[in-house]
C-alpha cells in the first residue's frame, strides 16, 4: 500500500514581476502557486534569481576577504558589473550608489547617472539601483536615474512608508520596478503596497524588501515575517503577493562571526570560508522563506547557492507527484 500525498492547493499565487526592459534581457520572478521550494506540489514558472552587488565608489567598509574577488574593480562599477555578469554568472546586478550619501562624498545625481549609464552599457542583465537610503537625496538620485534611463525596467531600491510618493511617480512615469521596503513587519509591508497602489502603481511592478539581518542577527524575525507574507499571498491577499527581494551581502559581511580573523579566533577556522558559509546559509534560509531576488557580495556564495538551486529544481521536477 502506498501513501498518496494530496498536493496543497492555494487560492492565491505570487505576482509575476519582470525585471529589466528595453536594452536589458528581461528576467521574470514570482508566479509560484505554493509555498517556497514546494516543487513537489506546486508550479514555479520562475526560479529565484541571484544578483551581485557592485559599488560606485571604493567601499570603505568592505572586508578584505570580500574585496579580493573584486580586486582592481571596486569603485569601477562598469568593470565590476561586466565581471559579475560574464565571469561570476550573476542573473542581475545591484549597483549600490553609496557614494551619493552625504557622508560618503555626496556624489551628485548627475554623477550617479553616469555610473548607471556605464553599467547599462557594460552588461545586458537587469539592473537594481540602490540609493543612499531614505531621504531627499535618495529621491533626487533615483528620480534622476529613473528619468534618464526610462524604459530600461530598472529596479529602484527603495520606497518606504514615510517616503514613497516621489519614487512611485517616477516608477509609473518611466516604466521601472519599485522596491517597497518595510521594517521586518507584515502589516507595514502591506501598508506600503496599499499606499503604492493608491498612487496608481501597478503592483506587477513592485518587489517587497522585508529587510533582514544576517544569520544570528535577527534572521529568524525576517524568516517568520516572510513566511506570514507568503501565507497571506497564497491565501489570496492581493496587497502582499509581490515577490520578495533580500539584500543578503550587506548584512552578512558586517557580522562579528565574519569580521573576526582566524588569527584572533583560531577555532573558528578560515575567515573566507566562514564568511562564504555565512552568506550561503543566510541566503538559502531566506530563499526557503520566499525570497525571489537575492543580492550577494561574494561570487563564491553565488556559485554555491546556484548549485543548490539547480539541484533542488532538477530533483523537484523529477519528484513531481502531480
Amino acid at each position, binding site marked *: 500500500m502506498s501513501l498518496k500525498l494530496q498536493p496543497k492547493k492555494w487560492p492565491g499565487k505570487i505576482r509575476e514581476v519582470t525585471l529589466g526592459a528595453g536594452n536589458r534581457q528581461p528576467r521574470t520572478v514570482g508566479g509560484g502557486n505554493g509555498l517556497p521550494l514546494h516543487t513537489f506540489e506546486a508550479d514555479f514558472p520562475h526560479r529565484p534569481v541571484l544578483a551581485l552587488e557592485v559599488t560606485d565608489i571604493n567601499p570603505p567598509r568592505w572586508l578584505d576577504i570580500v574585496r579580493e574577488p573584486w580586486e582592481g574593480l571596486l569603485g569601477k562599477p562598469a568593470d565590476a558589473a561586466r565581471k559579475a555578469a560574464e565571469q561570476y554568472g550573476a542573473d542581475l546586478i545591484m549597483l549600490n550608489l553609496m557614494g551619493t550619501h552625504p557622508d560618503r562624498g555626496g556624489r551628485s545625481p548627475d554623477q550617479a547617472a553616469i555610473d548607471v549609464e556605464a553599467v547599462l552599457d557594460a552588461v545586458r542583465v537587469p539592473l537594481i539601483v540602490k540609493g543612499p537610503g531614505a531621504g531627499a537625496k535618495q529621491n533626487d538620485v533615483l528620480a534622476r536615474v529613473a528619468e534618464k534611463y526610462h524604459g530600461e525596467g530598472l529596479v529602484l531600491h527603495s520606497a518606504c512608508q514615510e517616503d514613497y510618493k516621489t519614487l512611485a511617480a517616477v516608477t509609473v512615469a518611466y516604466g521601472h520596478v519599485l522596491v517597497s521596503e518595510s521594517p521586518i513587519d507584515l*502589516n507595514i509591508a502591506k501598508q506600503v503596497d*496599499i499606499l503604492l497602489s493608491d498612487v496608481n502603481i501597478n503592483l506587477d511592478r513592485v518587489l517587497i524588501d522585508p529587510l533582514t539581518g544576517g544569520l544570528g542577527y535577527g534572521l529568524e524575525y525576517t524568516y517568520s515575517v516572510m513566511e506570514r507574507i507568503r501565507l497571506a499571498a497564497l491565501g489570496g491577499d492581493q496587497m502582499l503577493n509581490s515577490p520578495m527581494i533580500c539584500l543578503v551581502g550587506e548584512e552578512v559581511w558586517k557580522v562579528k562571526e565574519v569580521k573576526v580573523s582566524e588569527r584572533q579566533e583560531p577555532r573558528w577556522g578560515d575567515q573566507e570560508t566562514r564568511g562564504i558559509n555565512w552568506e550561503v546559509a543566510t541566503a538559502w534560509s531566506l530563499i526557503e522563506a520566499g525570497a525571489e531576488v537575492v543580492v550577494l557580495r561574494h561570487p563564491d556564495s553565488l556559485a554555491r547557492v546556484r548549485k543548490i538551486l539547480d539541484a533542488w529544481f532538477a530533483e523537484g521536477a523529477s519528484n513531481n507527484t502531480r
Partner: protein
Amino acid sequence: MISKHTVLTAQKHRIIFSPSGRSIVVTEGTSILEAARLASEPLPAECGGRGACGKCLALVLEGDVPEYRVIHRKEGLSEILACQTTVRGPLTVHALVESELPKLISCDQSIGMAPLEAWAPWPLKLDPPAHINSSEDLGVAVDIGTTTVRLLLIRLVDGVIVGEASAYNPQISWGADVISRIIAAEKGRLDDLAELIRRAISAMILETTTQATDDADLIRAYVVAGNLTMIHLLLGIDPSGIRRVPSEPAALAFEPVDASSLGWPGRGGVMVHTIPAIGGWVGGDIVSGILRIGLPRQSDGISLYVDLGTNGEIAVGGADFAMACACSAGPAFEGSGIRCGMRADQGAIDGAVIDMEKGTLELSIISGGAARGICGSGLISLADALFRAGWIDRIGHFTDKLPDPYRLDDKHGRALRLSQKKKIALWERDLAGLIRAKAAIFSGIRTLLDSLGIGAGDISRLVVSGNFGRFLNLPAAAGIGLLPDLPPEKYVYVDNGSLEGAALALLSKDFMLELESYLRKITYMNLSEVPSYMDEFVSASFLPHTYPEKLKG
C-alpha cells in the same frame, strides 16, 4: 555642653499671581510652579513640571528672576517657564496660557431629571444607601476623571436632580496623565493631590447647593466613581503600586469613609461610597458605566462599551460575562499633544466638511466666532474629511490634492491651514498622534473581540461614553477606523456612563449590589501581556485600517 550651630535661615519671599491676586510666601529656591500649587493658583502644567509642555509660561510683572531662565522679552518684561524658574526675591507673575482653567460647557439638561426613570437600565426602585430624615435630604454622585470632574446633586426623597457642576481636575498642575500624578504622589505629594481634589469637589458641592438653594448639610450620602488612581488620590492612599509591574493597587474596593474626613459637608456619619474597580487600569468608572448600560441584564447578544478619554477603557460582554481592558490613547482626543489642540470649549473647531467640487473646507466652531484651536472631535472630523477627499493619504501625510490656499509649510512640517489670521493649523505630526490614538483604541477592541472569537459584526450594541464622546461624530469615528463600522442603529451614546452609574448607585441599593456581584464576572485583560496586541496596533495604525474588513466583520 551646648554646641553652637550656624543656622542658615532661608529667605522667604511673597509671590503674587496676576490677575487672580492670589499670593503665597515661599522659601527662596522654590519654583514658581510650586508656589502656584501652594497658592492654589491653577497654573496648568500638563507635563507635571518637567519643562516640556510650555503651558506654565508666565510673564514677570515685577521682581527679579535668573537671567538664564528668561525665554523671551516683551516690552521690557521677561517671559519664563514657571516650573523651571526658582524664586529669589518677591515676584508678581502673570500666567500666559489659560491662567484660570476654563469652565466646562455646562450641561444643564439633567436638572429636573429623575435618573431612575431616565437612566435605569432595568426597573429600579428608589432605595438610597442612607436613611432619609427629611424630604429635603440630598445625595451627591461624582465622577472623577483624570481631566474633568462632574457632580450631580440629587434629592433623595424623589430621586430628582437638583444641581450639577463640572470642573477641570485641579491635579492637572501635577501632570495631564495618571502616571505623572502617581509619580508626584511617590515624591511625597500625595497629601497635596488629595487636598486639591477634595477641595475642588467641596467647591463644586457649594456651588450646586447654592444654585439649588439647598443646604449642604442636608447631604446624606455620596457615591464616587473614577479610575483607580483618582480614587486612591481622593482617599489619600498611596497609588504607587498601580504603575508598577505587575500592577498592585492598594485595593480594588474601599470601605465607605466619613465625609467629614474628606472635608465634605454632611451632618454626622454621612458616608462616601466609592465604586469598586476590576484592575489597576480598569477602574470603578468603567464598572459604573457598564452597569449603567445594563450589561448584567442584557437578554441577548453582546455589547461593546467604549469610554474614550486619555485612558481609553473598553468592555465587551453580556449578562454572563464581560472582558475589559484599558489602553493608553494618549491625550490627542482631549486636544492635548496637538499643536493647536484645545479642549472642547468655546472657539474649538469641532467638525469639518470638505466640498469636493469646490475644493473648500467648511469648519464648525463651538459657540461660533473665530477658531481658537481644534478639539478631539474636530480632529476626528478633520481627519475623516481629509481622508475622504484624498487630501491626506492612509498614513496621514498630505497629498498633492491639498489645495494651495490650505497648504502651509513651516518648521513644524506640512500642515493644513485652518485660519488666515491666527496661525491655527493641523500638522502632519498631529495627524500621526491621532492615528496612534485611534489605533490604540481599535486594537484594544479587536484584541477583546478576538479573545472571544467574535468579530465586529457580532456586536449587537456599541455604547460610546466619555466627556469627549458627547461631541463625537460617529460616522467620522468609523471612517478613520477608531470604532467598528456598524449600522447607526447599533450605536448608543451615554453622556457620562460613569457619573450616571454613580447616580443610580446613590439612589438604589439594588443597583450597587448588582454591581458588586457582576464584578466577579468581569475578566481584566492586560493588553501589554497579549502577544498579538502589537500586531493589531500596527495594522490599525493606518486609515482606515490595513485590513478594512476588520472594521465590519
